[in-house]
């Protein structure tokens, strides 16, 4: 019997769980279905195209653009792993000072909408860029414009690696340090031990993060647009804004097909057959002594933080003080309500997503039934669909299915859940896989019901995953634009819709304050959230 075969006998170890398991599977499947159904409206749109659909979908240009998108996805995903994993290791395992600070810093780029970042980068570089102007006194004459495929890849990497960072962190926090110690005494150096022991165990976490990065990249419109790379979403967007909704829907379905492929790839490396890495003796987080390398290594988060956060803040702040390009007139005063609204919906979305994701994630971690796997994967469709496409689908869906909810807060929150719940599922599933089942069994023999055991044992143990999931949903909701624009109740403005409005109006300087508020608020909430995570983060080996 192979290890894989053996593991299939693991699920439902507490013997009476099969019935409940089936129930939970059905619940998970139902939730997943609810999340995916709105996308069904895309099919309705496509039907309008009739026979042309095939031609359009397979035209050479369509395929060429698709290929470019896939290439971008590959580059950005690889880049995010290369940045995110080392940063996670650094902030979890290394003996660096002010860990919390570096953690928040490293996660913070997620709070900045990547299109703002792209905008700042484009504005800052090039012959007349803000950066050049600022550095001219120092004799810097030109900085090459960062744009095109490289630029888009760079910017997307800088703003999406936190997905990998956060999910990897959650895995590392639940890692049993004695395994690495065992490897070290078997003469593996740090790197080898990392490669052969740590990596295989955090791989589900890394894969979960990489998946989010890949799908984000696939679905992002703003960044490639600003960077002038024609990617598939832009292709879709152009058709949508050209009143070709059916064509856009068709292309969106194609995009979802690509998503399915990515999901399939992820489940190969991810948790599917190599999961259940529970090991009983958890000796807490391992500590790596960096010695003299300690400070040089901190340059990595510093550099990434500086590009990702400081650059846009500085660019926008410069515009704020100098008036910046655009109209001198026009007021469009900033109101703190926008900030409050952002926080409020983001909070609701995070809570709702956690509630929805929990059964799906638990079921997928505990069972290897096809249905559970499908329930786990299907919601990614919502995440991979470009925001605008999803928004359109949701408009049709809600107008047809629940007109009373159209343009209400509940629908908006539902949209966020549809869009972002996979982020929560991924990280929660990863930590659920790491919970040693005998702990739950111990709770049961101590008289706790299944639910009681879940509440008092499983829940606290998967807390890092829940927290990470909630944080991801929270942060991404804070910066979500397309669905917010289309589905928000009239008169309901958030930081991002305000930023969008002033940017669109060319009042770039005015974006500075809300952008700053967005980053600060996200940073603070992140700090609060990550503070909860540290329960298992004892520096036992200090």
């Amino acid at each position, binding site marked *: 019997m192979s290890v894989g075969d053996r593991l299939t006998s693991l699920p439902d170890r507490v013997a009476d769980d099969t019935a409940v398991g089936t129930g939970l599977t059905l619940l998970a499947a139902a939730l997943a279905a609810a999340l995916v159904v709105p996308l069904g409206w895309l099919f309705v749109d496509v039907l309008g195209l009739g026979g042309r659909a095939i031609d359009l979908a397979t035209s050479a240009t369509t395929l060429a653009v698709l290929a470019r998108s896939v290439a971008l996805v590959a580059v950005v995903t690889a880049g995010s792993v290369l940045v995110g994993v080392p940063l996670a290791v650094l902030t979890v395992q290394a003996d660096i000072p002010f860990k919390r600070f570096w953690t928040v810093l490293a996660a913070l780029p997620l709070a900045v909408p990547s299109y703002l970042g792209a905008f700042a980068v484009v504005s800052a570089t090039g012959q007349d860029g803000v950066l050049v102007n600022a550095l001219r006194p120092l004799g810097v004459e030109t900085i090459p414009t960062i744009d095109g495929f490289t630029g888009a890849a760079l910017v997307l990497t800088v703003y999406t690696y936190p997905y990998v960072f956060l999910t990897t962190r959650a895995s590392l926090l639940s890692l049993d340090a004695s395994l690495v110690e065992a490897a070290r005494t078997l003469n593996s150096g740090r790197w080898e031990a990392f490669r052969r022991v740590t990596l295989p165990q955090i791989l589900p976490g890394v894969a979960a993060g990489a998946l989010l990065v890949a799908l984000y990249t696939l679905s992002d419109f703003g960044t490639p647009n600003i960077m002038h790379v024609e990617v598939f979403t832009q292709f879709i967007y152009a058709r949508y804004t050209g009143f070709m909704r059916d064509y856009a829907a068709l292309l969106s379905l194609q995009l979802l097909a690509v998503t399915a492929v990515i999901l399939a790839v992820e489940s190969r490396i991810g948790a599917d057959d190599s999961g259940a890495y529970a090991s009983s003796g958890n000796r807490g987080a391992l500590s790596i002594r960096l010695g003299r390398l300690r400070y040089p290594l901190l340059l990595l988060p510093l550099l990434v933080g500086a590009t990702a956060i400081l650059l846009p803040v500085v660019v926008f702040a410069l515009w704020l003080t100098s008036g910046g390009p655009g109209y001198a007139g026009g007021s469009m005063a900033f109101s703190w309500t926008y900030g409050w609204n952002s926080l409020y919906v983001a909070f609701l979305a995070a809570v709702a997503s956690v509630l929805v994701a929990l059964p799906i994630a638990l079921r997928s971690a505990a069972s290897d039934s096809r249905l559970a796997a499908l329930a786990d994967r299907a919601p990614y469709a919502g995440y991979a669909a470009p925001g605008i496409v999803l928004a359109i689908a949701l*408009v049709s869906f809600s107008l047809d299915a629940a007109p009373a909810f159209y343009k209400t807060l509940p629908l908006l929150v539902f949209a966020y859940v549809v869009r972002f719940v996979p982020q929560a599922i991924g990280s929660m599933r990863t930590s659920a896989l790491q919970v040693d089942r005998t702990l739950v069994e111990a709770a049961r023999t101590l008289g706790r019901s299944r639910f009681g055991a879940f509440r008092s044992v499983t829940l606290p143990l998967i807390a890092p995953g829940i927290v990470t999931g909630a944080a991801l949903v929270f942060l991404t909701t804070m910066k979500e634009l397309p669905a917010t624009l289309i589905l928000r109740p009239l*008169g309901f403005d958030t930081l991002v819709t305000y930023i969008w409005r002033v940017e669109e109006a060319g009042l770039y300087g005015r974006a500075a304050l809300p952008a700053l508020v967005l980053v600060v608020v996200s940073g603070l909430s992140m700090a609060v959230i990550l503070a909860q995570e540290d329960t298992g983060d004892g520096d036992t080996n200090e």
Partner: protein
Amino acid sequence: QGLIGGNSDDESVTIPELATFRGSGAIIEGRPAPGGTSIEDLPDLSGELNLYIGGGEGGIYYRFVEMLQEIYPDFTVYESSAASSSLAQNIVEEVESGAPQADVFWSIDASSLGYVADNDAYDPLGDTVVEPVPSGFQGDDNAWVGVAGRARSVPYNTDQLDESDVPATVREFPTTASFPNTVGWAPTYGAFKSFVTAMRLLRGPDPTRDWLVAMRENGAQRFPDEFVVSQRVADGTIPVGFANHYYALRVKNQRPDAPLDLAFTSGDAGALVNVAGALKIQGTQKSDLVDLFVRHLLSAEAQEFFATVSFAYPMIPGVEPVGDLPTIDELSPPDIDLSALSNLEETLEIMREAGVPG
């Protein structure tokens, strides 16, 4: 201080002086007082209005809505802003589902208005509402009315070129010897696509494709938007480009000494004048309020606001465009139904085929 007031029906309503509605800057100084109907002469706005307003210029226009709410304490607007085309498609769907959310749609381009009109999701505006606006800037059946215009233009650098160097038709651009690698454009920008659509409608698909190819082969430079195109022209990085007229004015207003001026082609797509306009959404319970609101948008103060703050072409004869812009009737726009600009599919296909993806 200085209230024009007095005529108002309600003592509590005070209309601010004209300067409040005007922008500031070099090119605004010394304008004559606008003609047309003053807000003072219009009934007061009151009640609540749901407004869909397109992004982009709409962000600036919305400032005027805020001013109206300041003037009329009983008047409240709930807005939702998104891309005009996306709002247009939403409106059609909402109306089809019998759940319209907004009373009035203020789009920043005519194609979105045309899309709603073509899909019968409007209620006609009152005759008195559309009456001051030239008929070319109205929809059939009073479906919509333009409130601010913008013209395609050719910003050029006055240090590098004379006005006479700029060809009179866009057709000549690829073959103008002094232009290789120098024409700036922003093909992803909506107004540019409208321009190509217009060319397609006027000259047919093949010549349009050929023109795009010729431009590309002649080294036209891509920029993210037309504001950047105008900036680059002012900087002298490129001597000439294609852009909506107000971007150059924006640059000028900030940098009065910039060697930047505008040329206009005549009678072809390059001279297209597109409009932002308002439309009454079918099923609104507030038909009269919408009419009155749109009349406010066409008031002297509003038109002065649009002209001087966003440098748009005013839609009523009594108000001059800003600076030394030719007036609307001095322009020679092509003869084209603005609503037809919403048919972008073929345009995009042509652009793609020409290697100039939009």
